């Protein structure tokens, strides 16, 4: 089953209610296609919601592995709604390990799902960072470039994203690919400060 904005919202509302009923509270930080659906930027269905980190007492923490109680609640929601087991997953946790864009947490939008769940949705500019990085990795024919176009980044935003992307992959080849993506978007290929 793939999510649209409504079904994703329903799944998160159910998860929030389940967590609340078990007197649990989690705050997760979402990026990727699912987060773009929540932001209303994307309309294409997505198969999951990528959680890049957890927020514990205001501090970002790794989401890999999910705390057991959260994993159990996700599985319960999946069973009830007929969702795939990994509908909410810690797939992109490596981004957190390598470092999120500066000011990421402060820019994220907060969505409350009852008392049990808060989803912090990465801001538009941070999504541009992640989608830029994914586009470089994915090539010019993948889904990420479409998502990046939907975000309508300015040349300046793309250069900032490129500067962040090369902190994750310092190879010269990756830097060259970044330039190609910038060029494809009509931005100046030189992104050094």
């Amino acid at each position, binding site marked *: 089953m793939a999510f649209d904005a409504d079904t994703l919202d329903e799944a998160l*509302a*159910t998860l929030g*209610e*389940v967590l609340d*009923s078990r007197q649990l509270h989690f705050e997760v930080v979402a990026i990727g296609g699912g987060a773009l659906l929540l932001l209303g930027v994307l309309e294409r269905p997505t198969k999951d919601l990528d959680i890049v980190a957890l927020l514990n007492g205001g501090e970002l923490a790794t989401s890999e592995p999910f705390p057991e109680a959260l994993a159990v609640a996700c599985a*319960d*929601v999946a*069973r*009830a*709604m*007929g969702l795939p087991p990994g509908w909410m997953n810690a797939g992109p946790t490596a981004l957190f390990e390598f470092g999120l864009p500066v000011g990421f947490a402060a820019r994220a939008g907060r969505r409350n799902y009852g008392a049990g769940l808060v989803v912090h949705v990465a801001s538009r500019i941070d999504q541009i960072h992640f989608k830029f990085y994914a586009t470089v990795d994915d090539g010019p024919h993948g889904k990420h470039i479409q998502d990046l176009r939907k975000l309508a980044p300015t040349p300046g935003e793309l250069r900032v994203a490129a500067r962040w992307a090369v902190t994750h992959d310092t190879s010269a080849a990756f830097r060259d690919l970044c330039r190609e993506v910038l060029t494809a978007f009509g931005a100046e290929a030189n992104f050094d400060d």
Partner: protein
Amino acid sequence: MTTKSRLREPLIELGWSLWTELGLSGWGHKHAAWFVDPEPLIIFTAWLGDGDARLRDESTDWCVQFAPLISATRLANLEVASDGETRERLGDLAAIVSLHSSVRWSLGDITSAEARRPPRHFLPTGRSRLETLSGASRLSLRLRAVLGVGARAEIVRTLLEPSSSPLSAADLAEETGFKKRYLASALEMMQKGGVVDGERARKEIKFRLARTNAWRDLLGETPTIWPRWIHLLPLLTKVVDLLERCERLSPRMQSVELHRAAETLFPAVKKARLRAPAGGALAEVFPAWFENVAFELARANAAVFENEPA
């Protein structure tokens, strides 16, 4: 009719019928051809609590009168899986039995028992009658009269069931509620005495009755329906507790809890040999499925069981 009473009423009716089979003073007994298992029934009745005060009092009266026919060990072993409220009521029952007979049952949480209020006021009615132990539904009591109250009677009873294949001590522990070690020791003696035959199957020894027909001749009428009450009655209580809890939940939460329960309870449904839709399909029909099972059990319709004709 409220959901609560709609769910519990057939179970109260079932309780009455099963108890009446055992000699309790009651009118509606429909399970004459069914095996009736006293210890799971005592625990089930404690779970029903004040749902029917007359059933509670008459079954207490039966326990006071016929406590020597009940296995305190088995009762204590089975009680462990009960919820706190049921255990509290069982502690109360044990206190009453102790007050009115020479039998001592160690039931209920000892810590809370010390702080517990005195048992509810109870006057024995003496209405229950057990002039004879004959009849299919009293097989359990009859075996206890022959073999004593303990593992041996339960081993013979379990192996007497026509559909029973040879069972290991571990299998028998699951079917009787006695500890495996205790059963293994009893089985060893029974094998030496020629009562059971054992055959090695991989690392286990599987046992069957040595002379089944001789046992049948000795015991007289045996049941035609052998419900696994030890699995079935706790399952019924769990499902009712679940469905009553779900009543207070939002539709979203109901769906989550029913799907979760359908998955976690499905092995118990299979152990109880109940017919049920497989996998996630059970969750979709859980309340209706359960209401049908409870209703049909109360009217002694064996078609709810997998091994009986629908």
